[in-house]
């Protein structure tokens, strides 16, 4: 009994102790973040959400340098003989699951998630149909651009197989976390890209501040169709942009410096901005070709000699020589706006599409002559008005190499496209356009956690 009394004495004390802490709440919502259910409430949120898609697009791991660098190492202009490490893997066509391809693979999907999230919250856009269509168009445009870059780097090109049933990449059209998906076919991927761009060209306005316009969507459509060797459509959309948009061919001798400058070139159909106080935007692009910092993406001798062979060619200014190591200095300005698509490229697409389908040859001839006259100032003979389709084609491809050097990874895709078209086509080291190793291997993580995800076959290039 005595002990029970003692226990009773303790009981109130125990209660007192219990209250010491029970008044505290232990819930903590991490600061700076918001649960998804509370994050998207207003139209302003959607405006900021879609805007967030452009930062990674312009980032170092995407168009800010990585796409270009990887593409050039796989193509035939870069000098990679001394390159080691992960870049050596790329140059030697032997990327493996641990070859550092994760960043270039991940970044487009980040943009896609942001685009998909935008599309799922469009109901919040209440200021009017135009605004709503603008955000929808931007989201679809971004989603298409990202799927397009991924399928070009991580899969064999369109036309590699007759039905394009070969493996492409995973298509993501909703924000939901979907583990365990397998890769879609290349045909499926291109279908989605085209559907998105088709929608975007309808939805987007003709003028849209720093964001994509309907002309940007049409320009990308042209590029996509060209990549598919679908020349009628490629021609059609290139023509619409050249004739319909505000972008104009820069016919001044300054085009070599204007192309990557601030203010933006008059030719830009879609570009990524460089804010005036942002000193690190596109830094890798600047550094890749900056001999002062150690040439990070040197070009080979052939490319150098070809590019500088004609003394009159204004584009010679893009080539540098640093103690026998050569590079391309297109991106030298401390601040420049990066056009992802410009009139020169669309003219080249229009010309080659015309020549390839042997229609509209006068337009094609004019396009090519615009480009050569601008570059050489008459120092080479322009194409004759009766030039043949094959003459146009040949000149067009030659000029494309010179104009597009080190831009948007274009050269690699031309090697693949021409091969897929059925012409002989090889990259450096005589690697066939369709060898296994010219396609990047997916990062290991995709296989480690997902049995449905199949890797790319390897080897076979050298």
């Amino acid at each position, binding site marked *: 009994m005595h*002990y029970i009394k*003692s226990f009773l004495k*303790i009981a109130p*004390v125990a209660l007192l*102790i219990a209250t*010491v*802490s029970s008044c505290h709440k*232990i*819930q*903590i*919502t*991490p*600061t*700076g*973040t918001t649960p*998804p259910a509370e994050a998207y409430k207003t139209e302003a*949120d959607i*405006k*900021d*959400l879609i*805007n*967030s898609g*452009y*930062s990674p697009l312009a980032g170092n791991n995407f168009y800010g340098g990585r796409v270009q660098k990887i593409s050039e190492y796989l193509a035939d202009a870069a000098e990679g003989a*001394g390159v*080691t*490490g*992960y870049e*050596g893997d790329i140059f*030697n066509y*032997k990327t493996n699951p*641990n*070859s550092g391809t*994760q960043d270039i693979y*991940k970044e487009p999907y980040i943009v*896609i*998630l942001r685009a998909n999230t935008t599309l799922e919250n469009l109901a919040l856009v209440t200021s009017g149909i135009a605004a709503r269509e603008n955000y929808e168009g931007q989201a679809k445009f971004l989603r298409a651009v990202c799927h397009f870059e991924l399928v070009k780097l991580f899969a064999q090109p369109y036309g590699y197989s007759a039905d394009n049933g070969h493996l492409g*990449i*995973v298509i*993501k059209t909703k*924000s939901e*976390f979907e*583990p*365990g*998906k397998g890769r879609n076919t290349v045909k499926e991927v291109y279908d989605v890209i085209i559907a998105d761009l088709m929608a975007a060209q309808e939805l987007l306005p003709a003028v849209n501040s720093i964001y994509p316009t309907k002309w940007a969507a049409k320009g990308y459509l042209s590029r996509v169709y060209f990549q598919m060797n679908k020349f009628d459509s490629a021609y059609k959309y290139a023509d619409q942009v050249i004739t319909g948009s505000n972008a104009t061919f820069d016919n001044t001798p300054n085009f070599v410096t204007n192309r990557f400058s601030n203010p933006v070139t008059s030719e830009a159909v879609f570009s990524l*901005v460089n*804010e005036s106080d942002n000193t690190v935007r596109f*830094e890798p692009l600047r550094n*890749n070709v900056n001999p002062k910092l150690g*040439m*990070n993406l040197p070009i080979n001798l052939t490319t150098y000699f070809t590019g500088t062979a004609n003394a009159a060619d204004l584009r010679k200014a893009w080539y540098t020589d*640093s*103690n026998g190591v050569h590079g391309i200095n297109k991106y030298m300005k401390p601040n420049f706006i990066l056009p992802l698509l410009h009139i020169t490229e669309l003219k080249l697409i229009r010309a080659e599409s015309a020549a390839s389908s042997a229609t509209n040859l006068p337009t094609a001839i004019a396009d090519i002559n615009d480009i050569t006259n601008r570059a050489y100032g008459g120092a080479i003979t322009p194409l004759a008005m009766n030039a043949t389709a094959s003459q146009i084609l040949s000149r067009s491809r030659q000029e494309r190499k010179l104009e597009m050097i080190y831009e948007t990874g274009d050269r690699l895709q031309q090697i693949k496209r021409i091969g897929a078209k059925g012409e002989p086509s090889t990259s450096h080291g005589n690697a066939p356009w369709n060898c296994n190793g010219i396609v990047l291997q997916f*990062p*290991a993580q995709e*296989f*480690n*956690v997902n049995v449905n*995800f199949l*890797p790319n076959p390897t080897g076979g290039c050298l």
Partner: protein
Amino acid sequence: MIRLIYRKTYTSIVLMLLFSLQAFSQNTVTGKVTDAKDGSPVPGVTVTVKGTTTAAQTQSDGTFSLVAPAGSTLVFTSVGFTTQEAPVRSGAVNISFAQSNQQLNEIVVVGYGTQKRKEVTGSITRIGADKIANVASPSFESALAGKAAGVSVSTSGGTAGSGAVVRIRGISSISVQGDPLYVIDGLPIDATYLNGPTRSTLGQDRNPLANINPNDIESVEILKDAAAAGIYGSRGSNGVILITTKRGRGRGKLDFSTRVGLSTYTVKPKYVDKNTWLAIRQEAWENDGNTGPQQNLPGALGGYSLSKALADPATDWWDMATRTGVSQAYNLSYSKGTKKFNIFTGGSYSKEQSYLVGNDYNRIGLRANVDYKPTSKVTISANAAYNSGISHLINNAWNGGLGLAMSTALPYYQVYDDNTGKYFKGVSDYNWDPGGSFYNFKAQSENKKFRTAEQRYLGGLTGSYKVTKNLELKGIVSVEQNNSVFNSFTSAFYTNQPFGNAEDNFNKYTNYQLQANAIYNLEINDDHKFTFLLGSEYQEQETKNRYVFVDSTSSPLYDGGKNNVYDTKKDAAKFVTNFQKRFQSFLGRVNYNYLGKYFLQASLRRDASSKFRENNRFAYFPTVSGAWSISDEDFMDKLKAFNYLKLRAGWGLTGNDGLPWNAGYPSVNTGRNEGDNYGNNPTIYPSNLGNPDLKWETSSNLDIALEFGVLKNRISGELGVYRKQSRDLLLDVPITIYNGAGDRQWQNQGKVLNEGIEFTLNTINYKSEDFTWSSNFNIAHNFNEVTDIGNLLPDAIMGGTNETRVVPGYSIGTIFTVRYYGVDPADGLPIYLDRNGNQTKVLNVNPRTGDKVPIANVLPDFTGGITNTFKYKNIELNTLFTFQGGGHIWDNSGKRSMGYVTDWNIYAFMAGNYWRKPGDIAKYPKPTLKGYPGVEGSYWDNNSSVQIYDASYIRLRELSLSYIFPQAMIGRWKMSNAKAYISAYNLLLFTKYPVGDPEGGRDGEDDAARNQSPNANFLNPPLQKSFNVGINVSF
């Protein structure tokens, strides 16, 4: 005022009267307590008249005086000493007090209290102050190495202030930290304040314990099993280390100690010299099908000149990056205890230079611990400590530190460029990194500066009130504040820009805790004794970070440690909360002691952590344990040899909540931070996939042990076995990238089993009046197995960038790689074994279809230590050997040093054993520059079992010789104690590992790497070997 004095005087007079009245009927007993070990006086011993509350404390000279009835018994107690009794008799009562952890009645600190060793039902190892204070390491935990069975302590490397990876009874966590919980005077401290990118700085793991002053520590208790650690519930899974700081006692005593030391490296890895390197590369050049002199030598655009490389003298980069480090430490403390006040106060300064040029760790520590007893029922204790640690760091091992000398600093490179006269820069191999990596150690060390500065304040206030004789209430408020700033500076020369750049990464950490508990002792007719503990606790932690990067500066953002360089960017930068945690607990424990020989303990703790969502926030952690003191049974009287025999067993649940704070919270970044802007417009975006269903990682622990002492404790020891099953492991799981939602998600997945046996033996091998030789031997075997990992492939959970993985059926950190078979004598190419054991020349590392298999264990089969103490009169010689056997080392850097000739140095042992011509039987393949045809990827992928080594070693970890000056000599200087010693650490090493020091690993990458790759090597600086001289004196 006058009234007060009057009252005080009045009280004193009454007290004196009472006291003297008592004195008439009693005797004043005097005596002296000396240390049985060395005869030195022991101050601060509580001397109690048995069965009364009459007590006194011994003074600094060990003497005491108190009033006791004739025929009564005196009880002598002190933490760390065996409680002794002596009858009151005429004349002085002199006691030789045994200070030994072999002893049974030693008082040990347990969670939320103290217990007598005999009554303890769990596994607790106690390490006293004398084992900690003099260790020549800024961080106390390295002093635990080899001293307790099942406690593995491996120092991370030779960097000053570097931590140790402490693992108690194996490792049961994979992605979350496997470190024990450290509790200083009741306040849990952890590495949380180093959360985020600063935990691992420059490849060196920063040590949260480095700024704790070892001289402040009274004792360290290691709680190994659930019975002991279970009271810490959700944080006890990896064991608990309790640190108790010193408190004042005895007559005023001033202690001063100082130490100076020199340090160097334990092992120097051997690499080939300049000409051999060039000759091997020439062979590689020819093996690749080239003819003529080799070209494209690394080091310059378009290739370094071969003739210059041959003609120039070789540069000894190792020599340039190392030195004899000088260290010094000073410590001054004062301790005094009176009836109402106990005070301990101390200050220390130490400067530890490592053998790495440019690397040091400086610490200043101040502490005051005060106890005030206004009445016999009330005690108020206050602790306050300030520690400041400033460390100058060197760049990543593989990018500027000593690692350069082991990798990219080739012997033909020159310090200065012939043409410019400035530092030779070399050419970057890392093309992603446009700044270019200099391979010139000298250029690096002068143009890149790194510093961390930490200031830690620890404070605690405890109030205890004895409500009745048996009931005590305690309230404790503890506060920790830690300011930690990491600075780096890169000069314009290095950046190759008009300016250099600097960063300033500031972490502000606060940790506070409120605790209330009640202890109630209940005794029922002498046979049944109960102790009840009931408590509650609330803890809150927060880290705020401010990061500034200035890209146009010519000086660092700090100055002389004051951090007072102002910069507009720095001033404008804001602190952002990057960690917050709230933690609430209720706990209860009952101890039952029946007849002084049967002991039972049960505890239950309920924890709630803000890291988990509402659905899984609370969890209960029960324990039950018991002990049977067999030697107290009557039937043991016949077995006289056994003076002590105790069997104990326990079971309990413990947990781990070491998640990032936001792991459970799917979230959208709506901060609209300026840095994320595009086109000067703000952005919001999905940022964390999160997992709202996360719950605790729990371990079920079973522990059985037998403690024994024979021949009057000449031989004593403990044999224990345990089994720990952990489930719902908190795993940082990679997720499919195409979702765009990040790389990883935290999930509860997997199970791990740890089973082991531990044996400790303490012996007094020889004892005479002048000479004693005693030994401590401990050894532990731990079996570790991952029993389940869900449906993840082995490559999913990586141990940093090493080939260490988590594979079901194998131990954590199993090396998972392709088996290297040897070299084809016909063509010199490497031969591997495919997954079926067939020979192949293709190194297929594909996670799905490849040939990687689990082949070696990084965890040792056994670890242990042997301490021998030889004492002759006043001279003591102490040796500690530590050892481990059976584990393996993954040499991650070896892939570039054993055949695949890149721009790295080449191991000397490779040079004599590689294929040169058809027919050669060699271990290493023919040298090549372009790689082996079957190796997919670059040299980074050139991993195989050829990089695995046996990690067994024995090392003489500590050797010390000390001399205690006799009283007669030092008494004239009013000293009560004086000791001089010389000591050496890591003096000898016996190992077959050819690359460096087998201890110490590249653990800094993240928690997973610390768990899975405790001894993976990637250009690690070897451990430090040091020699020290010191004196300790007391006045």
